[in-house]
């Protein structure tokens, strides 16, 4: 990837992170940790990879995105807002009475949201259905589903994997946010789903493991995924929960907690400094 593009993506990712903090802070609740760990890959998808049109969110031939780990709605909303699906200012209405930005994604109310989610393990099945529909209709759109590494403890995730491989849904790409943490602690302490790449391989997927915060690796993975025929792809994105905000890094306690005013100020200062350095 050339340096200009990379810098642009990094700048956008930084703005998306600010939008996450803005939303969760104003809502006084929500899930910053996993939203921040998925931001770079999400930025790449919406700003480099996916064929979507903010002016026509329901465009039939668009690529689809399903946030299977629906609690990370703050990241999706921030990406959609920065892409132009709705005003960035609206991020402050997150989780408020009457808001379009529900605590978990609601496809009926929010432009750009392709699937309702929030109950873990279900989104990825819907993504499989979308990929299957593309095959039925001979369309070449692609479908992306973002899963949590805790979420993949759900049996349904593996039912979906078996189905996608068996039906040769090579237009489906699942991304697992491998941040190592779920609510009750480290995934390896709670109910380990490891080894993750080997499991997806055994289920018949094309598997690519990357550093979720390295845009070169992100690009290489999505490019490779498009070339593989007859198999779905799983990108195991090794990430840091809370990425971008120093005090949230790798802390299970920031899975589902909102920053107070003081913490909000610190987070915003850190992100502003990062942005300033990038924009120099």
């Amino acid at each position: 990837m050339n340096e200009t593009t990379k810098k642009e993506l990094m700048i956008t990712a930084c703005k998306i992170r600010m939008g996450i903090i803005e939303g969760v802070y104003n809502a006084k609740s929500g899930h910053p940790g996993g939203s921040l760990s998925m931001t770079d890959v999400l930025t790449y998808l919406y700003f480099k990879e996916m064929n979507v049109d903010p002016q026509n969110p329901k465009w039939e031939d668009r690529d689809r995105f399903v946030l299977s780990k629906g609690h990370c709605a703050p990241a999706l909303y921030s990406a959609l807002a920065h892409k132009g699906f709705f005003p960035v200012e609206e991020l402050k209405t997150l989780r408020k009475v009457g808001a379009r930005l529900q605590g978990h994604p609601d496809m009926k109310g929010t432009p750009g949201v392709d699937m309702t989610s929030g109950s873990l393990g279900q989104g990825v099945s819907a993504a499989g259905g979308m990929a299957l529909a593309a095959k039925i209709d001979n369309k070449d759109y692609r479908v992306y589903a973002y899963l949590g590494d805790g979420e993949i403890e759900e049996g349904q995730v593996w039912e979906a994997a078996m189905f996608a491989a068996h039906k040769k849904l090579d237009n489906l790409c699942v991304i697992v946010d491998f941040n190592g943490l779920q609510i009750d602690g480290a995934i390896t302490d709670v109910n380990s789903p490891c080894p993750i790449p080997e499991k997806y391989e055994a289920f018949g997927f094309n598997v690519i493991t990357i550093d979720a915060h390295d845009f070169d690796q992100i690009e290489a993975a999505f490019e490779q995924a498009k070339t593989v025929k007859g198999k779905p792809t799983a990108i195991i994105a090794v990430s840091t929960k809370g990425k971008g905000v120093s005090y949230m890094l790798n802390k299970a306690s920031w899975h589902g907690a909102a920053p107070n005013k003081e913490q909000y100020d610190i987070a915003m200062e850190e992100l502003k400094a990062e942005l300033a350095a990038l924009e120099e």
Partner: protein
Amino acid sequence: MADMIKKATRESYGEALVELADINEKVVVLDADLAEATKSGMFKKKCPERFFDCGIAEANLVGTAAGLATCGKIPFISSFAMFLAGRAFEQIRNSIGYPHMNVKICATHAGISVGEDGATHQCNEDIALMRAIPGMTVISPSDHIEAKAAVKAAADFEGPVYIRFGRVAAPVFNTSDDYKFEIGKGLLLRDGKDVTIVATGLMVYESLLAAEALAEQGIDARVINIHTIKPIDKDIIIKAAKETGAILTVEEHSVIGGLGEAVAAVTAEEAPVKVVKIGMNDKFGYSGPALELLKLEGLCADNIAAKAKALAESK
């Protein structure tokens, strides 16, 4: 009543589990990556060797509990109501209900008082789902004192029990000295002759407040706390129907299949009177602060009083 102590019933669940750890060594506790929120984590601290985190895998959690029960354990299993009664309904029905397993399904974060998480997490259907399973006891405690007593009673009871707990801090209005919990027995909290308010869970205290307001307007409302929705206390309902001639039911649950329909089924057969229901009116919830949502959906003393007044006057 203004400066009453408040406590979420999920806290009561955690406290009761900690006490059970010492009393009953057959008790084992299982959770699905929500131990902090459901408060089963309190038991984990006290008794880590009898606590099992099953991860985000509710169907397997339910099946595992069934297996443990066949070997004489008394599993208390917890997650949010949506992910137990909802996600794992069929496992509960076929692996716990049908073989009549001694498993205690302790579901927290029931109803719209879940708040900001929104519709995907606000289970307004759990009572309906659990009531429909033959042999399932369904309990919805109204406050801390009752919730703790319900957990203890469930431990002593042989058979499957579903208990519903709330997320928000709720007024503790029962008094521990004279409080007596008996599965299947409704409680007459306030006598009255003009109309009866039958409530469950969080709505019991709101109904008491409503009855006070009604008294000031010259309306004498009876208030009944139905903590056990199944088996329901028919006698207390039939008596109320006959003596007051009209019943208002109040629940933080869908009006379909919950307390209201359970009460109406009793009156329809045994003492037909008008039954008006307050609850979620066949709609999904939405994000917002819990107390604001309860108000918006009419799950508050003001609306209960207004509806009870209209009902009393319509007789």
